Structure formats: C-alpha cells, structure tokens
C-alpha cells in the first residue's frame, strides 16, 4: 500500500475555510439551526399576538356598536366598552392584554359572556385530534400512492393503472374540501347510511370529517411524491445503487425514500399547515364543536375577543406544524443546515 496521501484536494477556498470554521464551532450546526428556528417561531408568535390585539382596532367605526348591532341601547354599548377596556388608552390596553395572556386570561366573549380561555380548553382537544388524524392519513397514504404511481409511470408497464391513479388524484385535488365533505355525506351517510353526517365523539363520527379533511392534501402530496420520485429515480446515485445490484426493495426504501421525504416535506409543509386551517371548514360542515366552528361563528357575530382567541390558537398550531416539519427535516437530511446557513 502506498503512503502518499493528501487530505485536502485543493487549496483552501473561502468555502472550505468556512466549512472548517463550522466544524470547529462548539455547538453542532443542527443545534444552531434548531435554535435559530425556535427564535424565529418566538418572533412570529409575538407578531401574531400583536396582530390579534390590533385586530379590534383595525375595524372601521365602532367595533362594540358593530358587535351589538344598531338596535342595542347606548348604555349597553358603553358598559360593554368599559368591560372590554376599550375606553382606556391603547398602550394601557396592550399592557392589560399581554398581562392577561400571561395569566392565561384571553378575555370574555361579547356575545355569550363565556370565558375565551374556557372555550379554548374545552374545544381545542377536538380540533387537535381531528387535525392529527388528518395529518397522519395524508402522509401515510401519500407516500406509497405517489411512489407506486411514479414506478408505474417510469417502467411504462401498467399504463392504464397509472392514468387511473392520476385521474383520481386529479379529481381529489380539484374538488375543494367543503364540496368533498358534502359529497361524502351524500354518499356515505344518506345513500349507504354507513356513518353519521354530523357530530363528534365516537369513532364512526370521525371517519367522514377526517376523510374530508385529508383526502385533498393527501392527493396533492401524492402528486409531489410522484414528481420527486421520478426525479430521484433519474438521479445518478440511484444508478449507483442499481450498479451495486441491490434488491429493488433496498433501492427504493433505503436510497430513494429519504430523498423523497426531504423534498416532499419541504414542498408539502405548507400543505400540512393548510390542513390545519381546513379544520375550520370541516368542523362547520360536520357540526363538530371545535375551535374552527367557534372561529367561524365568532367572525359572523363579530365577537371580537373570541375571534382574537381563536386566531391565536390557529396561528400557534400553524407555527408549530412548520417548526415540526423543519425539525424533522434537519433530523433526516444532513444538508438542511448547510443549505439554510
């Protein structure tokens, strides 16, 4: 064995020096990345809180009058205004608002007089379980469907099967979630009588809402997986894996899948936070007592404190999903840190 070796192939370029610096850094780049991401989340949360607070001040005219209606007596409007603290100067209101939030007090509904905090506590678990089930279904179904469709498209075998899958995915993408839900109710509740059309609580109750919520994002995600899979199958590193004559199973699961997941999550992250927002519509269609249906009725009745609370709940959920997607990305894809930095 010869002993002449070089560790560096080329003179140290700036890029290489940066790399070396990065390696010598005390924290790992992944930790750095995670810390930056969480920092960004906190800034975004602060912006969201401010947006929720100023929402009521952005309404043209008198928000209390708008909420109570033109027929409400002036004395009631005044007393409600005082209750909400809207008669105080704005900076004082902001301090009160932030102070209340720290104590876990998100205000009181104008319309019902219920505590916003209590409403969130009682309704949020429903929304969370609906979103989690939808999320799970979308991701778990999209991967095999998308990968299968890509393999069919690539080998040229099963052309009919492939165009069938593409057509179904296309329809699911084109039909919006509220229409899909109406269709699901029409077929599975009224026609077949398999599942109840509304309500929440039992497993049977969950089937249609979860399908209505997840099928659209699932189809979209499957399309992305299909496109990414075709790209990955054409890449040289898959040729390398094939040149090693690895069994097809290993080529797909070990060599293709991780590369698909990173690309899919990057593109599909927005889709998944869209799924969180989809609960607003699904809960309204299926009369599910969650935070989404509360938000819609609060917007309709101009119940500003309730809207503020629900906006905060949803914004936090969306930011949390984005953070989770990013954290999954840096766990499975070592390049994310470099690309981002």
């Amino acid at each position, binding site marked *: 064995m010869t002993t002449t070796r070089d560790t560096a192939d080329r003179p140290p370029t700036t890029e290489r020096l940066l790399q070396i610096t990065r390696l010598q850094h005390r924290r790992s780049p992944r930790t750095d990345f995670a810390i930056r991401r969480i920092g960004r989340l906190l800034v975004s949360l602060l912006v969201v809180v401010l947006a929720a607070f100023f929402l009521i001040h952005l309404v043209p005219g008198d928000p209390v009058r708008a909420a109570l209606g033109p027929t409400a007596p002036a004395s009631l409007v005044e007393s409600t205004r005082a209750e909400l603290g809207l008669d105080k100067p704005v900076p004082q209101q902001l301090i009160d608002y932030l102070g209340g939030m720290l104590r876990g007090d998100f205000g009181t509904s104008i319309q019902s007089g219920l505590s916003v905090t209590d409403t969130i506590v009682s309704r949020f678990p429903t929304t969370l379980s609906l979103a989690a089930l939808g999320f799970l279904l979308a991701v778990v179904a999209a991967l095999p469907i998308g990968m299968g469709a890509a393999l069919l498209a690539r080998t040229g075998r099963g052309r009919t099967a492939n165009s069938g899958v593409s057509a179904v995915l296309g329809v699911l993408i084109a039909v919006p979630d*509220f229409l899909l839900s109406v269709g699901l109710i029409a077929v599975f509740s009224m026609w077949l009588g398999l599942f109840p059309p509304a309500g929440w609580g039992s497993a049977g109750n969950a089937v249609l809402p979860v399908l209505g919520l997840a099928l659209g994002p699932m189809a979209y995600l499957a399309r992305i997986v299909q496109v990414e899979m075709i790209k990955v199958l054409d890449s040289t590193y898959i040729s390398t894996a094939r040149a090693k004559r690895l069994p097809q199973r290993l080529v797909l699961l070990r060599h293709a899948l991780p*590369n698909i997941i990173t690309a899919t999550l990057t593109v599909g992250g927005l889709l998944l936070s869209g799924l969180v927002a989809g609960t607003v519509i699904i809960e309204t269609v299926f009369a599910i007592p969650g935070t989404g249906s509360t938000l819609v009725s609060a917007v309709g009745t101009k119940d500003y404190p309730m809207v503020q609370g629900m906006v905060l709940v949803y914004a936090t959920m969306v930011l949390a999903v984005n953070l989770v997607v990013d954290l999954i990305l840096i766990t499975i894809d070592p390049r994310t840190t470099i690309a981002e930095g």
Partner: protein
Amino acid sequence: MTTFVPRDTAPAIEGVRAKPRRRSRWISVPGIAAIIGVAALLVIAIIGPDVWIQAATERNIAERWSPAGPQHPFGTDDIGRDIFARVMVAARLSLLLTIGATAMLIIGGLAIGLTAAILPRHPRRALIWIMDMLLAFPWLLLVLFFTVIWDASAAGAMLAIGLAGIPSITRLVYNMASSVTDQDYVRAARVVGVGPLGILVRHVLPNIANPLLVQSAASASVTLLAFAGLSFLGLGVQAPEYDWGRLLNEGLGHLYTNPMAAIGPGILIVFAGLVFTLISEAVAEQPGQGLRALARATRMALLAKVPSRREPVAVSKHDDEAPLAEVKDLRIAFPDGAGGVVERVSGVDLRIAPGEVVGIVGESGSGKSLTAMAFAGLLEAPAIVTADARRFDDIDLNAKIGAADRKRLGVELGMVFQDPLTSLNPALTIGRQLTEVPEVHMGMSRSAARTRAAQALDAVGIDDSARRLKQYPHEFSGGMRQRAMIGMALTGTPKLIIADEPTTALDVTVQRQVMGVLRRAQEETGAAIVFISHDIALVSAFCDRVMVMKDGVAVEMLDAARIREDATHPYTQALIACLPDMKSDRTKPLPVIPADLAAVAVAGDAVVAQAAPGGTAPSHAESAAAAEEVKA
C-alpha cells in the same frame, strides 16, 4: 447467429423517425378543453342573468323545496325559486369576484416582488422576511382575519382573498426575478449601465411572463374555490345577493330531501375551477405528452422486433483469449419525443480480456457512456437495448438475470460515474453506502462490512477512515467523493470496473490523483477497466487499447501505445492532430476539426466512412433537413 442482411436496409429503422413538428400549445388536449370551457363559462356569465333572471326570482310558495325533476333540474328553494336558474345567474357574480380578487393578488404580488428584486439588500431582506412570515399562514386564516376587519360582504371577501393571496405571488415573482437578475447577461447589461427599471422591463418581465401566466390561471382556480368556501361558511356574499358558494350553503341544509340543491352549485364550482386549472396546464404544456406517448410506445415495440442487420466485425486483438466481458452488435435507441425513435449507438462490438484496460474515447453524444451503461446491463426504459451477445464472465446480460448472478455482478462489476457530486446518495453516510455490497451480497456482518469499507477508503488514500465513514457525501470534497466511489467498487472483489468519465468534472490536479487511485486499484485487484473519456491523451496514456467512437459507431480500435502511428480514420487523426506537444508551433492556433469531417456520415464501420467522406447516409440527410425545418 443472425442471418446476414444487406446494409442498405438501415433506412427501415430511420424511416420510423417522425419529423419534429412545432405545434401551438393550444392544440393539445388540455388546450382544446380549456378553450371550450372558457367559452361555456363566458356564455353563461354574459347571457345568464338575462335568460334566467325571471325563473331565478319568481316566488312560488306552493312548490317550495320540490326535489329535482324535469321542470326544475336542481329543484327549488325555500320560496319556490328554481335553483338551476339561480346557479346560472350566480355565474356572473362568482366569476367577476374571482377575476377581481385574482387581478388584485397578481398586480399586488408583481409590484411587491419586482420592487423587492431591485431594492438594496437590507430593505429587501426585511420585505421578504415579512412576506415569508405571512406565507407560513394558510390563506384561509388570513382571509378570516381580513374578513373580520372588512365585514362579511362580497366586497370585503374580495379584498380579503386578494390580500391573502399576495404573499405567495410576491415570493414567486421575487424568486423568478432574482434568478433572472443573477444571469450573466443581466450582469453584463448592468455593467454597461442599464438601470434597474430597464433591467426589469427588458430582461426580467419577458422571462417571467409565461410562468406568471401559468400561476395567474392557477391562482384564479384557487380564488374561485376560496370565494365559494367563504360564501359557504356564510362569510362571503350576503343575501339577497348570491354566488355559487352561498347557493351551496343554502342547499346543504336540505341534503336529505333534495341533494341536487347542494350538488348543482357544487358541479359548477368544480367545473369553473377545472377550467382555470386547464388554462394553466395548457399554458405550461410540454411537448411529447398525452396522445403522442401512445404512438411512441407502438413505435418502440416495433423497433424492438427489428432484427440485427450486420455480421459482427471482430476488432479485438485478443481474440484467442477467453474474454472477461463482451458485447456484439450493440444497438441503443431512444424515443425522440415526437413519436419516433433515434438510434444513438449502432452496432458496437467490444471484448475485454481479464485485467485489460480499454479506453473508449469520443466527443459528447458519441454514445460512449451509453455503450458502457449497456455493457454493465444498467440501461433501463425508455432506452431500447439490443445486442447479439452481451456477456460478463459467464453471465448472459441479454437474458433475465437470476438472484445468484445479481449478487456476482454487484460484487465483481464496479461502476464509477462522471460527476461525484451526484453519484453518491446525499441522504446516506459514506459508511452506509460502502458497506452495502459486503453486507447484501457477500453475507458479511455489520462490523466485518465496516472493516472492509474502512480498508477500501484506506486503499483509495482517504485518511482517518473510521471517522470518514460516519460522514455524509457533502462533507467530502469532489476528488474525495470520486475516490470514495472507486473505494465502493473495491468493497467487492471487482473483475471489471467501468469508469465513465471519472475525471471530467474534476480539476487537473485532482484528476491526476484520481487516475493514480484507479491505476493502483487496477494493479492490486487485477481487475479489467473500461475507461471512458473525451480526452484522447489521457486515454492513450492510461489504457492498453483505445476504441474511438463517433455518432454512435465504433470507428476504430487501436493499440494505445501506437495510436499516433496506427490511426487511419480521419476523425481519429484529427483528434490526435489537435493535441499539442513540445514540438507544436505556439504562434499558431491549435488545429480545428473541420465541419465537413465533424458531420461525416458513419453509417456503417470505419471503412464505409472512409470510402464515402461527406456521404449521404439517410439518418444524417434527414436530421440536416429537420434542422433546416426548425430554422425556417
């Protein structure tokens, strides 16, 4: 053995090729469907309110909530109005609101995105940061937020949906614009003094116009559904006005008695959404999809049945030895995207003796890499590979390869690809990728495989192998990655290593290292090497024999040591003449391969090409004609 067929049957295969046609993007399935759909929507929106307003407003309490029937296709509502008529009347408002909100988000996004592209660094970053943060929130949440401010009404909903769509268009416009402004020709324009506005108008806008058009149509589809959704939630258009979403909302309560009251408006919503999507697809349409794919498949099947037409011509000097690997009359064809096929490699013969180093040299597109891939049995659909014989050791690569033979191929045949940046899997550690052959094919344990992988890295001169195995490809430099690729081949017991331009992507000093590693690997394992390059000097220095390829044909097989003396084919001679040496007159430019020689017809073997320089083989006559046609 195949029967001999005269060479002049070659046009049969070329005749399959279709001439390239330039067709309008609208003459395609999505294009025609989009035109018909737009026409239908326009007609309904323009004449709808006049034709159906009577039926849509006429009350008939006696017929309230009557189910769908011949008189009322979608049934009637709570005061007996015909729902079908109301759906038709609602088309105008639904489409106007959609177009209004779409115009708002496109104009807003374009203005902010382009502004961001020409802003100085700090304000640009701030603006994009704000847009990115807004982008993190789904449109529905933004829409609901804005709806609270502007009240639940048609105008409020339009403002809300338009504003909520701006961030994503801004990001798109900004990304496209900055990728254009990074181009060298834009930099050049800036250097000669074109201002930011001039750059935007002259360079950026024309380049982003088409994708923006695609995106506008796609946004219109999303906007339409957003309106429907908002009105469906009761937060958009308010009674007594109505759009499709509002009608859907009203119908939902009576799903049990008259499903058509909800499904009717739903059909129109989906139809209109689909039309916008079709427009976007028609604008973005790529050639070679749809129906034409079917014609292509038929022609491919046809070609696969075309028999070989030539007696294999033996060119090897090693005829007497039993070859390690050989291929006879190798042909590789591809679909040309317009329904025909193009033969890219025609009748190549190659035999490799054990331990022999054979070079394949030729310019880009000469078919040398394809030949190597087919030689290794790695070409897959859509490539169509035929050969009289294709063999590695005693494995017939033309037949279906059994499990045991697959293992042997994995262990004994190594591949090194051109670009080390893409040939290693970015998501897996080097160790994972180097232990696969020992683990999967040689039945080694995890730790034994790791030891072997570490030895392989040592053998290719990568220090600190234990730590290096834990790293990912992106932590390696280009030259190290290529050495790791060679190391990967060494984790088996290679009898043949096919190196496909292994040094082309590397700079010259690294090139020398990699060649050294390859040479050492050859000496230590005794493996044969097929070395592919466009660099005739490198190939003749490294190899025993050299095969010269041009336009998919092997024009010459030469002894590497005597390449200057023995080269008879004008193309090879021209290649050699281009090589400078110590005696070259440095005041003169290097010779150039003449155009007529570069375009010389090589329909058969070297002899034919020599006998008829500038000949008129059908394939080239036709491609020249096709090129003329495109120019015209």
